[in-house]
């Protein structure tokens, strides 16, 4: 079914699909087909790691050009997260920052010839959303304790609400469902937007308007959508963390 899905959707050729066609019928081609998105994400991981390693290799008090750019990014994420969560957000900055840079590179990699956006695949985005889900729940569990966590899921019933039993139970299940839906909504939103962009890129690749390829106009759309979707993913992640952290404070 997945094969049929790929066949029915237009897709620009990339490095893996070209190799796949070259070695068609071999086990290597099957391997490439099965791990296409992971191969691209690993390439992106490798690139980010190399850049981050060399940029932050010499952290001096008087920064150079690259260190300055990297510090601007790190400081920007720190301000973004701590601006929403307050000082408590500092511990989530590496996680949210890594998500941001990783998703951004994966979203925009579709613009590079012979590359593909791994985020146009649901498995990839769901994996990231599951990481967020697990980390959020783990943070809630660790901060609130078992009973506190259950209390949080039951929307902290107090007074007459606590004695009504049925309402806290309903609230508990409602909250559980809303928590479980979060990774689905997070991952599907990102995947669908990027998949739509990539499909549009592939469709418009063969068209032009007065000699100007339509791909040129669509490129801006892809860039904007890629950045916006990254921001949305990270913003929602930050909000999830905020809800679980401030739940403890209230």
């Amino acid at each position, binding site marked *: 079914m997945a094969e049929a899905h790929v066949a029915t959707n237009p897709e620009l050729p990339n490095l893996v699909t070209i190799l796949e066609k070259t070695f068609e019928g071999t086990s290597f081609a099957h391997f490439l087909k099965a791990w296409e*998105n992971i191969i691209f994400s690993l390439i992106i991981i490798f690139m980010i790691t190399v850049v981050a*390693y060399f940029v932050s290799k010499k952290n001096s008090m008087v920064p150079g050009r690259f260190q300055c750019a990297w510090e601007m990014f*790190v400081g920007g994420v720190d301000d973004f997260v701590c601006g929403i969560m307050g000082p408590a957000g500092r511990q989530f900055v590496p996680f949210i920052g890594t998500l941001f840079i990783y998703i951004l590179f994966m979203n925009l990699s579709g613009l590079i010839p012979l590359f593909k956006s791994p985020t146009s695949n649901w498995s990839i985005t*769901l994996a990231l959303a599951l990481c967020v889900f697990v980390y959020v729940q783990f943070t809630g569990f660790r901060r609130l304790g078992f009973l506190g966590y259950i209390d949080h899921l039951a929307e902290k019933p107090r007074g007459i609400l606590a004695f009504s039993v049925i309402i806290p139970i309903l609230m508990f299940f409602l909250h559980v469902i809303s928590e479980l839906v979060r990774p689905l909504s997070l991952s599907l939103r990102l995947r669908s937007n990027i998949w739509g962009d990539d499909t549009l890129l592939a469709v418009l690749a063969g068209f032009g308007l007065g000699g100007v390829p339509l791909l040129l106009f669509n490129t801006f759309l892809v860039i904007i959508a890629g950045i916006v979707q990254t921001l949305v993913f990270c913003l929602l992640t930050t909000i999830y963390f905020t809800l679980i952290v401030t739940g403890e404070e209230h």
Partner: protein
Amino acid sequence: MELLKLLSANELVAQIVSFLILLFILKRFAWKPVLKVLDERKNKIESEFKEIDEIKGEAERMKSEYETKLSAIERIAKEKIEEGVKEGRRMADVIKQGAVKDAERMIADAKDVIKDETQKAHDILKEDIVDLTISAAEKVIGEKVTDKHDRKAIEEFLDMLEKKKNGW
């Protein structure tokens, strides 16, 4: 169910592992050191600004202190100058009075000397006149006038003349 067919368990697990590896690497080598440097720089700038404010406050305090001291010194200096001027004037008065007294004394002394000298000259002149008169009388009468007796007579005569001259 259709949606689930888009998923691949292998890719899902591999992606989770890849992301966790990236998270570990970036946290270890990029996020923590950079955030540490940012915090250190922020603290350094804050402490330096604080230090600058303290130094500024100290400078302001010293300035006001110096201004107070300077005005006190100016006041003291003015007082000293006024005292000096007063002292100078007083000394000038003393010197002036001394000089006047000295001058008066010197004038008085000079007058006394002149008086003495006049008296002396008068006496000498008188002696000379007596001698001249005696010698003239001797030549007129042709004999020697006894010195003691005649001298006395002449002197009495001269005194009489003098008294007459003075309106007696």
